[in-house]
Every structure is written in C-alpha cells, then in structure tokens.
C-alpha cells in the first residue's frame, strides 16, 4: 500500500503557496499551466484521501483551469490578451498578498508564545469562551455530513432492518472509550443508530465528561 503524507491545507491559497514554495521560484516565473496541473493533482489526491474540500478549493481549481485554457489558446485578440493578463495578475497579487499575511501571522505567533509573560486584560475574559471551539464544531459538522453522504450511497445498495438503540445504552457504551475518532464512533449501518450515538456524544460533552477537539477526536476529559 502506498503511504502518503499530505500537509493539511486549510484553504486554496495555502495549497498554492505550498506548490510555489516547493518550486523555489517566484509564482510569476512558473507557467500558469504548470500551476494549474499541480493544483489539480493535489485536489484529486485530497479527494482520494477523503479530505473534505471546501468550495473555495473548487472555485480556485476552476479559475486555474480557465487561465490554463487561455494560456494554451494559440490566438487571442488584443482585448482577450489584455483580459487574460489582468486575470493572471489578480491571481499573482492574491498569492503575494497571502504570503505577506503568513509572514505577519508568523510574527504574531512568535509574539504570542511570549504573551504569557504579561498580565493583561484579556486573561479576565478567558472563561467566557464556549466549551467546544468553533473549529471543533465545524469539524463535527463535516464528520456528520460525510457520514450521511456515505450512508446514502450504502442505502442504494442494500437495506437493513435495524434493531433499536437507546441513548442511555449508547452512553454506557461510549463511557468505555478514552479516546477515539468521532468519525469511527458515529459510523453506523443506519441513520437512527447514528443519530442515537450522536445524541449520546452530545450529552457526554454537555456533562463535561468528554470533549471533542479540533482534530475530530472524542476524548475523555481529565478529572479537574
């Protein structure tokens, strides 16, 4: 089996920047068709690995394919050529701008590591953040949606008559876990079972016994 390690690209610009850095060239020096092909290659790889692609990736992919097709057309009228150059420039500028953004972000990150050394007003607002972070909520949403999608596909193949589950039973079952991917926990043969498990998960999180991290892991909280 082929093992692939892929950095986690949060957005299309992260991927573009990664591709450009790998080439050790300025983005303007790389032919647009090369950029487009490499971008598509990664998109396909990410799809194979079941990585959730946001619509931003798809729209960047189509923009790149469009620019590639323009670049390959033998004859463009002067107006078309001007339009093409303008669109290419927009892409370059957004990548360059993003690069700058990353530099500033890194600077802030380094600063933040020293931040604990200062008594500041922000420490006092700390406790007000909700138990599950937004990133974690988004992750749960993605996992749930993917499972539903998978289930639809399975549904087309065969139908299963399902036994009944109660939230209480599921909760007892979950309590045996110390840490496991939420995806695996929720995966079930039918929707009812999945929803029952999900309700049990929510209950345990609300009770503060478990938590779900940004990494999509369901884990037992350490006793305070």
């Amino acid at each position, binding site marked *: 089996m082929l093992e692939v390690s892929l950095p986690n690209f949060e957005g299309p610009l992260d991927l573009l920047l990664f591709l450009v850095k790998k080439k050790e060239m300025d983005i303007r020096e790389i032919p647009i068709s090369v950029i487009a092909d490499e971008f598509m290659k990664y998109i396909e790889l990410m799809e194979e690995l079941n990585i959730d692609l946001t619509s931003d990736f798809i729209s960047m992919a189509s923009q790149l394919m469009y620019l590639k097709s323009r670049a390959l057309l033998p004859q463009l009228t002067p107006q078309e050529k001007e339009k093409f150059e303008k669109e290419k420039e927009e892409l370059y500028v*957004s990548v360059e701008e*993003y690069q700058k*953004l990353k530099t500033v972000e890194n*600077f802030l990150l380094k*600063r*933040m590591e020293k931040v604990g050394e200062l008594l500041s*007003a922000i420490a006092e607002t700390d406790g007000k*953040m909700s138990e599950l972070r937004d990133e974690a909520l988004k992750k749960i949403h993605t996992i749930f949606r993917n499972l539903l999608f998978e289930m639809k596909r399975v549904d087309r193949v065969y139908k299963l008559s399902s036994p009944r589950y109660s939230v209480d039973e599921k909760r007892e079952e979950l309590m045996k876990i110390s840490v496991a991917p939420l995806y695996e926990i929720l995966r079930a043969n039918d929707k009812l079972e999945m929803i029952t498990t999900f309700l049990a998960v929510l209950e345990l999180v609300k009770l503060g016994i478990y938590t779900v991290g940004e990494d999509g892991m369901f884990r037992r909280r350490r006793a305070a």
Partner: protein
Amino acid sequence: MSETREGVDITILARLEALLFASRRGVSLAELARALELDAEEVEKSLKVLKKRYAADDHGVELREFGGRWRFYVKSGYLEYVSRIRRVYAKKLSPSQLEVLAAVAIKGETTRAEVERMRMKESSAQLRDLVKLNLLNRKRKGRSFVYTLSAEFYEYFQLEDISELLSDNR
C-alpha cells in the same frame, strides 16, 4: 513647589500615578493631559520620569505603553507569585484566528468580505470570537461592519505600534 532631579513637579507625578493606577485598561497621553489640565508634552515628560522610577529593582510593577495606552504591569519576574492568587496566563489563539488578525493588521479598517477574499476561507466565526476577546473592534459603517485592531490587540502582542508589525522581513 518641589521638583524631581529631572525638573518635574512631584505633585504632577503623584496625580499621574493615581490616574494610571485607577485605569483598568490603560490611558492614552491625550486622556491624561485632559484630566490633568496639562499639555501633552509635559505629561509625556512626567510619564518618562515615572517609568524610570518603577523600572528600579525595588518595584514589582512597571509602567509600559502598548498601542498608545499606558498602564502598570506586573514585572515578569514576579508573575509566578501573582499566579498564586489569580490567573495570569492569557488565552492562546488558534492559527486561523492569528491569520484573521494578520489580515486586519495589513488592511487596517476591513470588512468580513475583504478578510475572506484575502484568506479565501470562511472567517465569520474567527471574527466573532476575536471581537468577543476584545482583540478586534467592530463598528457599523454604512451597510456593513468594519473591523479594526483594538488597544488590547497591541497589549496582547506587546506591540508599541503597527509599524513594528508591518516593517519588512519579519
């Protein structure tokens, strides 16, 4: 009228100290000048004298300025003691929150749409949390909201001003 070696009126120093002690989130030079009925130049001179005094080893707090706001802070060497009576450490921010802050820092006054265009990522959750944490200000402008860096942002990252952040080769 008694003066310090630096030629600053000690009653002004005392008043200044009282104002700084009482302000929870720090005070700007202009606010101090208004409250003391003095011109900014004189206040600044006094602030510097006060700052120097607190820098001495027999003080556990120091006077610092971030993003134009002056405040007393516990010196880092004494935080360990303070942590025994209250929480000291600030919340750590996520990479996506830092990215959003970087976008606002670069653009100055920014809308959500602009932040999302720069990142090509959905950003509303991050913006909302950063406003809740007081690191961004949000105000209405026309039909949309605009975001700016708050005084707490400068304090949190210990920045005196924006040029420290945006100058080249960081």
